[in-house]
């Protein structure tokens, strides 16, 4: 695959999109680094797809500006923006063959037939579909259709690639291999890519950077690890993997934060300025909780409400000071039946304090 000459970044400036009276995107500023694969992640209805479509030119911003590289594309139609998009439904033309689908953009550009055939063949080979050109779309499996869609997007060597939940119609196994393929292609071509998904594990696996969105606003931007380890809000913490949101006290002691949860005192290495002190809510990852018999250690105590054996681990629901706590304890640890009184032993690595409170993700 040929790498594009120069990757360009994308910049959204004060972009707002209102459908009728419904504000879907609320004054967003966002910069996407050139050559990166950035994921827009969020629950359905958060506006992530709308941002993608605004970048593509399939929607017009109500206000604000959109730049691709150094060009203001706000008023430019989709066909003039030099972007390519892979659709959730693949959007392959049912009345054309695989080859015609992939070569469609070239035909539109009046690329001579011979060159077109050559580039189509190469693009199909790149996605592992050499020789499938003459087939019709309905003769292809879901995974193959996905590859055709990617080949069609890449063949124009666009400045920007947009992926709209491209894997949501595939089964789990195929999804995993496809997301690796996409990541690999993106790395190889270096085309600035924006990827929309609601699946956080997919986002974590493919992205350089993840933009978490909530109700038309950006909740947090960061690398996958950042977002997981240092969520900026209860929403991000609960959306990026599972998390228990617990009441705690936070104290700053030099270079560390000391978090007190129900008698346990945990020292956190993350002591960025700006984090709250005093009474606060913290996120505790379920896999960082171990259970010990009541009274053995200092910590919040509770009663096991339910436990479920899921193979590699046991999952517990514990009632703890009126709140429900979810814990995942690896196999090999002692097992507590429902009704047992236990104390929670919390590993500080799995605890995050965040600057904003607010509602957790549903």
């Amino acid at each position, binding site marked *: 695959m040929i790498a594009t000459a120069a990757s360009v970044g994308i910049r959204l400036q004060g972009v707002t999109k209102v459908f009728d009276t419904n504000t879907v995107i609320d004054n967003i500023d966002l910069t996407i680094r050139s050559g990166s694969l950035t994921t827009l992640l969020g629950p359905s209805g958060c506006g992530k797809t709308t941002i993608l479509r605004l970048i593509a030119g399939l929607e017009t911003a109500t206000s604000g500006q959109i730049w691709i590289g150094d060009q203001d594309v706000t008023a430019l139609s989709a066909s003039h923006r030099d972007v390519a998009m892979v659709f959730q439904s693949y*959007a392959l033309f049912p009345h054309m063959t695989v080859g015609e689908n992939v070569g469609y953009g070239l035909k539109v550009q009046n690329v001579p037939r011979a060159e077109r055939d050559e580039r189509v063949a190469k693009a199909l080979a790149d996605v592992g579909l050499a020789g499938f050109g003459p087939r019709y779309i309905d003769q292809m499996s879901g995974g193959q259709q996905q590859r055709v869609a990617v080949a069609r997007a890449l063949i124009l060597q666009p400045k920007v690639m947009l992926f709209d939940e491209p894997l949501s119609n595939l089964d789990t196994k195929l999804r995993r291999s496809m997301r690796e393929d996409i990541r690999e292609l993106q790395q190889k071509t270096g085309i600035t890519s924006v990827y929309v998904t609601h699946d956080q594990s997919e986002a974590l696996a493919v992205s350089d950077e993840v933009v978490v969105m909530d109700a038309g606003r950006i909740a947090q931007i960061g690398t996958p690890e950042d977002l997981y380890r240092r969520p900026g809000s209860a929403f991000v913490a609960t959306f990026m993997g599972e998390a228990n949101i617990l009441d705690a006290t936070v104290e700053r002691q030099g270079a560390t934060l000391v978090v007190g949860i129900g008698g346990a005192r945990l020292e956190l290495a993350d002591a960025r300025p700006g984090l709250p002190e005093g009474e606060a809510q913290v996120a505790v990852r379920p896999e960082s909780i171990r259970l010990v018999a009541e009274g053995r250690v200092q910590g919040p105590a509770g009663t096991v409400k339910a436990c479920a054996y899921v193979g590699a681990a046991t999952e517990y629901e514990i009632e703890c000071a009126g709140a429900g706590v979810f814990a995942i304890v690896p196999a090999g640890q002692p097992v507590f039946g429902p009704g047992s009184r236990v104390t929670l032993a919390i590993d500080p690595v799995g605890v995050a304090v965040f600057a904003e409170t607010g509602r957790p993700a549903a």
Partner: protein
Amino acid sequence: MIISTSDSARTERAILAWSLAGLAAFAVLPWRALDYGLFDALPSELWDAVGWRVADWLPWLPTVVLAVLAVRPWRAAAPALAYRIDAALGGAAILALLAGAKIWGVPLGLAAAIQITALGAIAALAAARLGYVQGDGFMTGSILLIAGLIAAFILFPLSTILIRVVVDFKTGEFTPFRFFEIVMSPGFGRALWNSLVLAIAVAVSTTILGLVFALYATRATARFRGLIRIFSILPIITPPFVVGLALILIFGRSGTINDGLLALFGSGGLLVPEGGSGWFQRSGYIYGFWGIFLAQTLAFTPVSYLVLHGLFGTISPSLEEASLTMRASDWQTLRHVTFPLLRPGIANAFLLSVIESLADFGNPLILGGDYDVLSTEIYFSIVGARLDYARAGALGLTLLAVSLAIFVIQNRWIGRKSYVTVTGKGGGGHLMPLPSWMQNSCGVVVYAWIAFTAVLYGSIFMGGLVANWGADYTPTFTHHAELWAAGLNYGGWPSYLNTLKLALIAAPLTAVLGILIAYVTTRKRFVGRGLVDFGAMLSFAIPGTVMGVSYILAFNVPPIQLTGTALILVVSFIFRNMPVGIRTGVSALSQIDKSLEEASLTQRAGSLRTIISVVLPLLRPAIISASVYSFIRAMTAFSAVIFLVTAQTNVATTYILARVERGNYGVAVAYGSVLILTMLIVSMLIDHFVGRSRVQRRVALAGGNA
């Protein structure tokens, strides 16, 4: 920046091209409308109508503006400002031109139409560059075109009706209370009441019959389902009043029934004692309410059958199966599960029939007798003993208001409800068969109806082949010979060929315009969509007579002077049948994933290219079926064209009507039967050659995937 410049350059090139086209039109084409029509004009008349030879400054107005737009002295200004100037100038020039033509009475011709198009296209290109409709020049242009057409051919004509009511036609006085005077006048209330009573009665009977048919066609273990299909199509391809004509042949004063009864019970009849005076006299019972009722029931039952039949197919058999497993009987299941699910569809069929009955003009015209309804009153206000445009206008507005109200109810309230059912996918399982007593009674109704229809259509075909139906049943070809054997310039040929030609011109245009409107309103968001939606909705509700009246009022005088030309017939066909195209387009588009077009757009295809390469191929079956249906409707059009035809532009239906008025029933039905045969053959040919294409199957499959 490179691409941005080339985009601007492309827009500027397009603006230049349009300006030059407009200037060229001014230079060589007739700018002023030709008094005797473009195709009938003498060379000298054509020459004198060319823009710069017209002794008037009006042609120079758009021409100068186009010349300025070709140069674009403001091209160096900031793009946002420059494009604003382009758009404003283009729009203002169009409005000024139309206003000028109206005030100074200059009828606009071909070159003027091209100039208006050019100015509109320039305004659209510039508006698109300012970000209108996702920056899409072609779409902006299409929307402008659609809005312009709807304004010119739906809203403007209707507004002239309104003006006729409040401004006296002869004196020009402002008469704000005229409407109420007319409404209070003796004939008005009766006509309105008659129309409503008739419409409701017809709707009740067609809905019940439609339901019986649908039940029978979907659930009975009948052998003759195909027969039902054919008989449900027949009224659709029959000119509106030919069924009424058949009723006259059978039930009229000298119809078969009267003749039969007279022969048995009349004076000197078979069953009357010698010398007795008999106790039966010829009766005109068919003229009046019952005649119209019968004719409309026959004509509109298929509509409600098709609506309900479509709905039956979408009811999931699993719902009925669930009811059956809960120990409900067949009848209880129908009563408590199936019928409630059908309720919105029944209401839908009912309201559609009401609208159809209100709008029907042909049957009340020939069968009405003394039973006046709104549509015939409108007609006789204009062609009758006293010419009263205000009365026609007030009647027309009333009829329009009633149909519009019913249409809004149907669309907003029920349309939405039934839509949910229609999209719901049915599960597996079998539809429950009818309880046998229901199946039998439905069967009786269905076959009685089929037999009755067969007799009526038989009488249409036979009526043209006997000397004088009702008096002399000698087989003869004289009626057909009179129509078809006197050469192409005599008898039925001129109107037949003219109808065929106009319908063939109008049909594809209707389909394309309707589908374009469907595309724009369902797929695009833009400022001014309300107007397009409203205009489209009006076109659904506007009765033919109202349209006919509004057209003669609106297009008799400049700026758009069309009366007497064949063009006005084509235009009326297009806007009268546009709903067919819109409906077909909306339903076909709902089957096509929107992302297919978006994929094409992101593949750097412009929207024109996208429509040609992606949308049109996928919509091909819809376009064909909309064209066929528009063709049929144009061939059988009557209520609007009767106001618009002239000797040169006579059409089949008005020719038949003239024969009916002169009592030449034989010739009239002979012509009618040829017309029916024509349309039967056309629709069967197209069905045969087009059928369900490969593309359509693939679309269906793709729909399943997405």
